[in-house]
């Protein structure tokens, strides 16, 4: 059971990471990217292929991330100056193209070249063969504790700022979130953090082979989240949000709109690239079919569920997505047709949400009623 939850945690965290990249591009900058999985494909394949060739895993991930960002640079420079729908079309095309290349190319493996469709295996998965002694376990648990404390701090900070906003509703045209819902959110958030923490500690103590990977992905997720929160609140973040609202305004105010779009696009791509490496380690064997367009739409679902533009909302969306995924996986045991049904039901849930709460779970309702 502990092992199962470790796997679910890794899956959730890597999807959260992946979606944070898209949230930066779409939720914050307004760039429509329908081929986000392309960055994940690049991140996964570059990391794995380099690692199979004997490149140390850290270096391989770093290169994978840089290559993903470079893909963002290439797509961005060619399309970001054009009308925004061009980006949507080009990204979707690039994602499919990369998957087809991954499928049809022959890739090196320890037993000589193999067909892409057979998948890549026998690459190193970080910390899978680790046999930690007591001290090392304690250090890993300490690291997990720091991450949990950080998560609690972020939760607390978010709730506090909402609370404060509630105190000053004068002169505002909208009503902030009610105190009772803040308490509920606090309770849910705390429970989840504590549950993941306890499960993680157990897995580390009685070392489960994926526990190290879990700490790693949580660490990266925490760092990326923190970095994004700093960026969003900085003048840099103000410019990208301004671009999302109306790019002519930052332009008349002397901001190089194209350059900021490119930065956001590349950074979002790099984050998805790292998520791709974790995806490969999570899967243990990567097949081109793991990188179909549906993966991009999972990320869109996550962002829309959570509330576009909100990093915290993206995390909530990823949790819900992952919970849905696990529950239905265990309920609907059966063939491919049931798999399709799961996706259909997910679409239905998103549709219902759009009607009931169009702003997403953590989105701000008042933003929907604003005039352009």
């Amino acid at each position: 059971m502990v092992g199962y939850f470790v796997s679910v945690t890794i899956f959730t965290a890597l999807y959260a990471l992946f979606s944070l990249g898209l949230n930066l591009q779409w939720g914050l900058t307004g760039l429509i990217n329908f081929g986000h999985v392309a960055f994940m494909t690049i991140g996964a394949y570059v990391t794995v292929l380099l690692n199979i060739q004997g490149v140390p895993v850290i270096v391989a991930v770093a290169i994978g991330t840089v290559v993903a960002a470079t893909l963002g640079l290439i797509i961005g420079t060619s399309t970001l100056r054009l009308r925004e729908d061009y980006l949507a079309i080009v990204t979707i095309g690039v994602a499919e193209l990369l998957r087809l290349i991954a499928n049809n190319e022959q890739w090196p493996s320890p037993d000589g070249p193999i067909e892409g469709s057979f998948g890549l295996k026998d690459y190193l998965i970080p910390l899978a063969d680790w046999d930690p002694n007591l001290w090392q376990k304690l250090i890993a648990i300490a690291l997990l504790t720091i991450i949990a404390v950080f998560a609690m701090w972020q939760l607390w900070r978010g709730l506090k700022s909402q609370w404060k906003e509630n105190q000053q509703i004068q002169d505002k045209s909208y009503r902030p979130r009610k105190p009772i819902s803040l308490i509920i959110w606090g309770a849910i958030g705390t429970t989840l953090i504590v549950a993941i923490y306890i499960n993680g500690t157990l897995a580390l103590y009685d070392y489960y082979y994926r526990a190290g990977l879990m700490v790693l992905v949580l660490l990266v997720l925490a760092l990326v989240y923190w970095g994004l929160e700093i960026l969003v609140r900085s003048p840099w973040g103000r410019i990208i949000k301004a671009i999302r609202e109306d790019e002519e305004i930052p332009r008349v105010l002397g901001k190089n709109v194209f350059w900021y779009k490119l930065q956001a696009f590349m950074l979002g791509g790099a984050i998805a690239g790292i998520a791709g490496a974790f995806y490969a380690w999570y899967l243990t064997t990567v097949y081109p079919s793991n990188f179909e367009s549906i993966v991009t739409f999972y990320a869109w679902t996550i962002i829309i569920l959570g509330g576009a533009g909100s990093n915290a909302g993206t995390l909530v969306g990823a949790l819900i997505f992952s919970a849905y995924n696990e529950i239905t996986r265990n309920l609907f045991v059966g063939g491919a047709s049931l798999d399709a049904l799961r996706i259909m039901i997910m679409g239905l849930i998103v549709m219902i949400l759009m009607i009931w709460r169009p702003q997403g779970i953590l989105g701000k309702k008042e933003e929907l009623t604003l005039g352009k």
Partner: protein
Amino acid sequence: MTQNQQQNLLLSASGLHKRFGGITAVNNAQIDLHRGSITGLIGPNGAGKTTLFNLLSNFITPDRGEVIFDGKAINQLQSHHIAQKGMVRTFQVARVLSRLSVLENMLLAPQKQTGENFFQVWLGRKQIRKEEVENKEKAMLILESVGLAAKARDYAGALSGGQRKLLEMARVLMADPKLILLDEPAAGVNPTLIGQICEHITNWNKQGISFLIIEHNMDVIMSLCDRVWVLAEGSNLANGTPEEIQNNPEVLEAYLGVD
């Protein structure tokens, strides 16, 4: 023109030309503007005034023509570079960043903010905090002067049409420009407020900012401007002091509708 006069020109555009398909929106137009002046630009609907603004700020690339701002040719520059050089514009239909607060709208404008650079966001956090405090103070002062201070923390998208005009003007001011191009600042604004806007413009002008104003409200033009340029069907019709323009028979016929 003597050397001295030339140096006194903040903006000088000549031979500007722009066709949209079969329409010549701006036809060989010229405009000169002195440092520290408030210059008016008038003309009938569809005369090409807004298009001329677009050409000056390079939002639309002219077919031909030359624009010299502050002694340098700027036709080849991208619009954000032109803004950085100190020429900023507003839009005929006010544009605001709806889902950002009024204050954030203001804070977007200052030039060369340390925190606009991705790496400085991490390296220069102290400097950024200092600048933010300064910019916030300045923004609140300006918002105070246009009567939007109470709205500072509300969404800009929740402002009324007239308030948006005010916010747009206030925001442009935050950019510390040398020249502000205003496209119909008084349109849709109530008469008392128009009076206040005019006062603000005069005040800001005294602080050294030059203005080029498109406006259909003749009282505004006549009370504010040192010099008025008239455009009709894309070409220059006349230019002169407000009195000269008011008494120019051609202008009266083409624009003021008196014969």
